């Protein structure tokens, strides 16, 4: 059993078996992270570049730790302190980095499709760490992993994704992954932040939070992306918090043994109240812990083999 592609660009088109393989592998790595020496020599000699064109705390540190714990060599790149400032194009930048003999690239970029573009001009394995409003596959996978850990299986769960669906790559990766694994998915948010034809992805669409939450097992609360709110799509944050913020009152509509997730960073008091974010049903910090194991699994499964798979 192996992954079909040597890149991870998104969860769209990834089969149930492949997701299962990644989640099973991550379980092993989670055990490694509990050892006294949290490091294995598996990726010795593999060089990974973390190419971050956008700000990140969790994803970046998580990838960095995953690489270090697999004994890979790593180089960090952030656009703000590089020759991108002098006007170097993305293609030139990555071509130059690859000329220094690297094996894998982890990329985050504000434009959707950038990781795919890199697969066309590089021979390294490419891992998408978030591209525009397209996908954030490792986040989707760690969300699946966290749910599988708690409920033992994902099939049959009802998951509601609340917030700015339009700009959210986390929502898209979650929808693809959850649908593949057999969960039912609903999305809920203001109509101005709901993309056209989202229902074509096989999800229920709600603009009323109360209706959406009825009978749900899992609420995945998205961050209001303040940096992407220039167009006046929201009247005010306060109005958003009133209409779509998750507070303890709203949890009553959920099924018993419900779960609250959030990909972080949290805007406390906007999309989620502090008592919900820190409540006993919240798995927000488990998501972060599991992120390292998932990224180790992805790096492991995509590495290896001089011969090209496929």
């Amino acid at each position, binding site marked *: 059993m192996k992954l079909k592609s040597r890149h991870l660009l998104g969860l769209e088109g990834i089969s149930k078996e492949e997701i299962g393989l990644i989640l099973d592998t991550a379980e092993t790595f989670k055990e*490694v992270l509990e050892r006294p020496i949290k490091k294995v020599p598996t990726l010795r000699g593999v060089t990974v570049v973390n190419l971050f064109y956008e700000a990140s705390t969790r994803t970046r540190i998580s990838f960095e730790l995953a690489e270090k714990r697999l004994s890979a060599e790593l180089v960090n790149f952030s656009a703000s302190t590089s020759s991108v400032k002098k006007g170097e194009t993305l293609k030139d930048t990555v071509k130059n980095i690859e000329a220094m003999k690297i094996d894998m690239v982890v990329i985050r970029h504000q434009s959707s499709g950038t990781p795919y573009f890199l697969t066309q001009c590089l021979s390294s394995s490419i891992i998408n760490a978030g591209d525009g409003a397209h996908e954030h596959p490792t986040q989707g996978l760690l969300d699946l992993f966290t749910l599988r850990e708690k409920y033992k299986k994902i099939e049959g769960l009802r998951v509601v994704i609340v917030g700015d669906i339009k700009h959210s790559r986390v929502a898209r990766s979650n929808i693809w992954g959850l649908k593949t694994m057999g969960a039912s998915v609903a999305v809920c948010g203001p109509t101005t932040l709901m993309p056209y034809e989202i229902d074509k992805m096989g999800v229920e669409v709600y603009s009323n939070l109360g209706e959406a939450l009825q009978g749900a097992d899992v609420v995945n609360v998205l961050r209001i992306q303040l940096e992407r709110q220039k167009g006046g799509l929201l009247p005010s944050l306060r109005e958003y918090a009133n209409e779509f913020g998750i507070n303890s009152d709203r949890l009553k509509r959920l099924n018993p043994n419900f779960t609250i997730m959030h990909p972080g960073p949290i805007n406390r008091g906007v999309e989620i109240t502090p008592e919900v974010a820190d409540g006993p049903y919240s798995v927000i910090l488990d998501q972060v812990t599991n992120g390292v194991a998932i990224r180790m699994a992805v790096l492991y499964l995509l590495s*290896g083999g001089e011969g090209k798979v496929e």
Partner: protein
Amino acid sequence: MPRRKGVLIMDEKTVRRALTRIAHEIIERNKGAENLGLIGIKTRGAYLAERLAKIIFEIEEVQVPLGFMDITLYRDDIQTKLDQPIVQKTEVMFDVADRIIILVDDVLFTGRTIRAALDQIIDFGRPKLIQLAVLVDRGHRELPIRADYIGKNIPTALNEQVVVKIQEVDGEDSVTIEKEKRK
């Protein structure tokens, strides 16, 4: 597919006798079973370790702590193989520090698996010493590694395949040599 002719080397009885002898040797060499720890290498070595623990308990009435190890992450050929091997869980729930660790595997061949297992054990802590028990030693070492306890020495040619079957996995206990290399 070429027809494979297997020559039976060990059956259920001989496997049981070999394991019983190894258990006695372990106890004799270490003057008891108090400070021991058994670690089996997955998949078949894990079950052999489990059986050794059982036999040692029958002889000495000491429950030797038991662990299982998957050595995939410590392999030296991980980046040359096309297909990434499936990683299984490693479960060593006891502290290896200052213990006498008996590493258990089914076949000792090149020694590379044992090298990986040794590195992994040492990452868990600093054992007092590590000994190696194998059901079959088939020769052709590529590293300076030898076994302390051997069920059976089987001189083989490189194109032969030693097939160990274990009740818990394969439904029977047997060791056979097959002429053709399995694909």
